[in-house]
């Protein structure tokens, strides 16, 4: 008697992802979709697509979606959640979107403790527009707008959004995870699940930062990219829980 232990979640549509081969955006999509399915909230979920490589993920998530202007997903989510408090509202945003142009919106969604879930994809680069420097680009990392490697004197040291948001009283839950190997993928899923459960309990702003890859713009094979994420990204962006609701503290 065979038992299916893994199959494509109903949280995803049949549409093929538009991501480059080996891009971990896909893994993260799956995790979010599986959580929506498992928590049985697909039918009341409303997601917000960013501007970034994930711009068309309204075609991938099998629930209602709104596509937001670059960086404004948390504001759009606020608009939705305030008028539809019984729905489950989440944003999915890249690091250009969330940590650069959308800084004010994410900080203030946290500040107000909007009861939403934010999935943050930190791939240290602007993927969609062809690999420009992001605020999260590592020092020395070459991108099309830091052709000589990011120079901390000129551009500062990369910004750590989880740490920054964790200082805000309204940020109920903040965790950074990675998907560079199966164990971390499984752990990441637990974080996503928790972030949605917090919303379901009405506890406020929940934020999961993913260390993600951009093999194409990093100029690496998919596996090299995972290795680089593990060796360099996680070094600067430590994984872990930066804030959680008191009742859940371990």
């Amino acid at each position, binding site marked *: 008697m065979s038992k299916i232990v893994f199959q494509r979640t109903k949280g995803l*549509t049949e549409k093929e992802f538009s991501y480059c081969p080996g891009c971990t955006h896909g893994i993260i999509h799956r995790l979010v979709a599986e959580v929506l399915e498992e928590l049985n909230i*697909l*039918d*009341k*979920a*409303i997601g*917000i*697509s960013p501007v970034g490589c994930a*711009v*068309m993920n*309204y*075609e991938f*998530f*099998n*629930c*209602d*979606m*709104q*596509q*937001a*202007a670059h960086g*404004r997903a948390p*504001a*759009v*989510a*606020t*608009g*939705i959640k*305030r*008028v*539809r408090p019984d*729905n*489950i509202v989440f944003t999915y945003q890249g690091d250009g979107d969330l940590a650069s142009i959308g800084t*004010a*919106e994410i*900080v*203030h969604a946290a*500040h107000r403790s909007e009861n939403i879930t934010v999935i943050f994809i930190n791939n240290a680069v602007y993927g969609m527009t062809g690999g420009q420097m992001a605020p999260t680009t590592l020092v020395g990392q070459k991108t099309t707008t830091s052709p000589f490697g990011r120079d901390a004197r000129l551009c500062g040291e990369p910004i750590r959004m989880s740490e920054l948001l964790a200082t805000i009283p309204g940020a109920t839950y903040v965790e950074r995870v990675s998907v560079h190997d199966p164990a971390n993928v499984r752990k990441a899923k637990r974080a996503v699940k928790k972030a949605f459960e917090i919303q379901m309990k009405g506890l406020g702003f929940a934020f999961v930062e993913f260390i993600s890859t951009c093999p194409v713009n990093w100029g690496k094979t998919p596996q090299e990219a995972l290795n680089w994420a593990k060796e360099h990204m996680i070094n600067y962006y430590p994984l872990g829980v930066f804030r959680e609701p008191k009742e859940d503290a371990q």
Partner: protein
Amino acid sequence: MAKVMMKGNEAMALAALKAGCKAFFGYPITPQSELPEYLAKHMPKYGGVFLQAESEVAAINMVYGASGAGVRVMTSSSSPGIALKQEGISYMAGAELPAVIINVMRGGPGLGGIQPSQADYKQITRGGGNGDYYVIAYAPEDLQETVNVIKEAFDVADLYSNPVMIAVDGLIGQMMEPVDVDMEVSKRELPEKTWATTGTQGKRPPVNINSLYLDPLNLEKHALKLAEKYRLIKENEQRYELVNMDGAELVIVAFGTMARIVRSAIELLSEEGIKVGLLRPITIWPFPEKAFNEIPDSVKGILSCELSTGQMIDDVKIANNGRLPVGFFGRTGGMLPEPEEIVSAVKAMLGGLKHE
């Protein structure tokens, strides 16, 4: 209903509540701050949401979200704040989302001043955002009309699934006049918002709210669909008032506060035996081109009177299409002319016309 004295900003807020507005997102700015302040106080009673956003940019995107979720929603601001909303407004037009946006205009450019102005005419009617789109824009002249127009605006926004702007100046925002907020206004038959993101509730396939069309052929299709909608709006929603047209020698085109001052000027002129008409756009987009067909043959010229250095005059010229000489009178930066100044401008123009 007896009329009550209300401040313009507060009357606008109340009108929105009466129109079933269930959410407001805004950011403080003079001279419109009493509008959000009124809603902060009264929205809860109406079971709606009031939220002060972190910026105008955030506010308009909250409006986008709430509108996309199917709810009647409003924002308000003043000139530089509207400039910041342009991207969001373009997105809403692109995604075909209804909302009412109030612009209580002040002097510009830049930080400018805070006194009444109409210098955002082009910002409003030409779409300061990117791409092929328009917002419907009402420019009422007194509080009763403002209140009525706002109540209709929510219907019009829903009917066409397009943002509607209310373009008033700081004077209308700050003044008090007797107003009946319960006056009946015409209602539109509205389609259900089946496109709204309410969660599928397991009853329908997912929907999405979106302005992205990566395939240019699809984007063109979408733009042409919008263009057809705008054509319909131009056909059906032009609104204007004609005053004193019979036998007029000259027609003044003016809206909002300027129209009121012009009315006084027209009275002064008629005391001197000079007949001048008023063509008052109530919608500034669509501009009431139709009204120009009703300008009688007695008219020898058109004077565009504006609280700016001359912006609506472009639309006057287009509508006039070379038929009559077009002149301009304006005060700007927050200055309001006295009726006598308009009287002089009219006389100067009539004098000039006789010399030609």
